[in-house]
């Protein structure tokens, strides 16, 4: 009896082990994006631009052209690329420190220009790469290495909701928040990723997918506890949903 392969790596994802910590969702996000790139057959015209954070090593894993950007500036770099190569598919891959803090200006203005690129946003509520400091998305009460007593809104403000913030901008064609903590959610996330790239392929404007992700290392929790934390607290602060989905014209 011949065996059929029913599960394999996407072609766009190199056969290399991830460096991510156990239970980290960066790997799942990588896989979903590569699957979507394969689905549309766009690997050979796609250029990825990772921000600076644990996702910067994207170039080790994605088998396509990749350009590094300074911390937070990926949307500006992507703008330069897209204007030179309007036929190519350009995406950024940014953490919450990268996009929601130091790079806030670049992402908002890129979105507002309706730049026809896709931004994948990894919200793990901390600065993963630099050792778990507070991010703009850190939950109220969450302990990080720079909020040792828990984030207090009186001194540190509130968690920023990027998907909701970007969605009302006219230039934005698609904005969704998804999560990667259960198989059902991963399926929904896959759909959002597909739609975001579909929007770009159809030249409809700026598309944005926010992924809620675990950072077990810096949350100081086991992968299982992380899933519980996402399912409880994190979903309360960051409701899932599609905040904008411009219809095809």
């Amino acid at each position, binding site marked *: 009896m011949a065996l059929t392969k029913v599960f394999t790596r996407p072609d766009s994802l190199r056969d290399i082990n991830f460096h991510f910590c156990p239970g980290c969702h960066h790997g799942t996000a990588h896989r979903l994006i590569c699957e979507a790139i394969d689905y549309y057959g766009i*690997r*050979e*015209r*796609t*250029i990825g*631009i990772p921000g600076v954070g644990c996702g*910067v090593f994207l*170039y080790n894993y*994605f*088998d*396509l*052209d*990749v*350009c*590094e*950007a*300074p911390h937070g*500036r990926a949307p*500006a*770099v*992507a*703008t*330069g*690329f*897209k*204007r*030179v*190569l309007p036929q*190519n598919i350009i995406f950024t891959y940014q953490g919450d420190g990268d996009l929601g803090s130091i790079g806030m*200006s*670049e992402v908002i*203005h890129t979105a507002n*220009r309706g730049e026809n690129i896709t931004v994948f946003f990894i919200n793990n509520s901390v600065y993963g790469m630099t050792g778990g400091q507070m991010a703009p998305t850190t939950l109220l009460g969450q302990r990080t290495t720079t909020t040792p007593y828990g984030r207090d809104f009186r001194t540190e403000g509130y968690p920023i909701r990027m998907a909701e913030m970007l969605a009302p901008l006219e230039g934005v064609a698609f904005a969704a928040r998804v999560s990667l903590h259960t198989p059902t959610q991963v399926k929904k996330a896959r759909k959002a990723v597909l739609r975001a790239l579909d929007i770009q392929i159809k030249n409809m404007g700026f598309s944005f997918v926010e992924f809620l992700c675990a950072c077990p290392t810096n949350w100081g929790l086991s992968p299982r506890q992380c899933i519980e934390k996402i399912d409880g607290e994190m979903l309360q602060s960051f409701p899932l949903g599609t905040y904008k989905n411009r219809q095809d014209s």
Partner: protein
Amino acid sequence: MSERQILKGCVALAEGAIAAGYRFYFGYPITPQNDIPEYLSARLPQVGGVFIQAESEVASINMLLGAAAAGARAMTSSSGPGISLMQEGLSYMAGSELPGLVVNITRIGPGLGGIAASQGDYRQATRGGGHGDYHLIVLAPNSVQEMYDLTIKAFYLADKYRNPAMILADAILGQMKEPIFLNPPPLVLPEKPWALTGARGKKAQLIKSLYLADGEMEQHNWHLYEKYRRLEREEVLVETDLQEKMDVLLVSFGSCSRMVQSALDLARSRGIRVGFLRPISLYPFPQQAVREVSREVGKVLVVEMNTGQMWDDVRLSLYPGCRARLLARPGGGIPAPGQILAEIENLVKAGDGIDESVHQA
């Protein structure tokens, strides 16, 4: 298009960029360089180009980085404060070996400073400016014609060396009008096999400045080092106007060198034997030329519109034992030819021997 025209410096520069085949401009308004984006916002669409008014200079330089990585000739322009904001991006471009042109139409600083011309950004431009061990290629025009010619040259050098280049001009050069010939050299755009255009029929490529493996970054720095040494050997641009048996050598760059040239004419008409040396490439600096000519002359007068920045490069290059003086004015005002002449006469009277004094214009 080779007939004589009268153009503003900023416009000549923009036309030079177009003649160099560049089609992508990213920039944020700041005085005194607004003539460049305003002109290009009308001109670029006529030649199928792209003009973006970015949300900041931080965004401008990173758009430039992206366009350069995609293989295009691209440019941004700004002045002092905006150029400061671009330093992170410039460091990344140098580290990632990406060509591109940044124009600094300088104003007087530090801080918000003022909008009058100054040469106070010499050090920032020639030392790198951002973090890490790198240089920009820096060319300094002194006429409207050179605003055009050197812009074309800067694109060419940036591509040749895969390194960002800067035109360092100032408010005077940007605003003044002069006759100019638009004589573009034949446009030959270099192949850029390293550019990212998608992995179609070839292996995926990567542009980065991050090297974490043991010794990798050190090796990368030595690679950049070799590139800068080659620039220093092969790409020095300098103008000289020398005489037999000179009493004094004048060294000056950019708009200030025009005043110095007037002073030189005055001095020569009085029978003083004066030589003139103008660094056109500020990096690579014409060390050899300064050394050789100063050896011949023995007395050197540096004139610049700052409190002594190129002065450092001249002193590093002088033939040992020369008498050198700096006539400095920080910008905001221009050293007058009469003042320069007085300083020349002073220096002629002074004896030989080491003297590195600074005189305020």
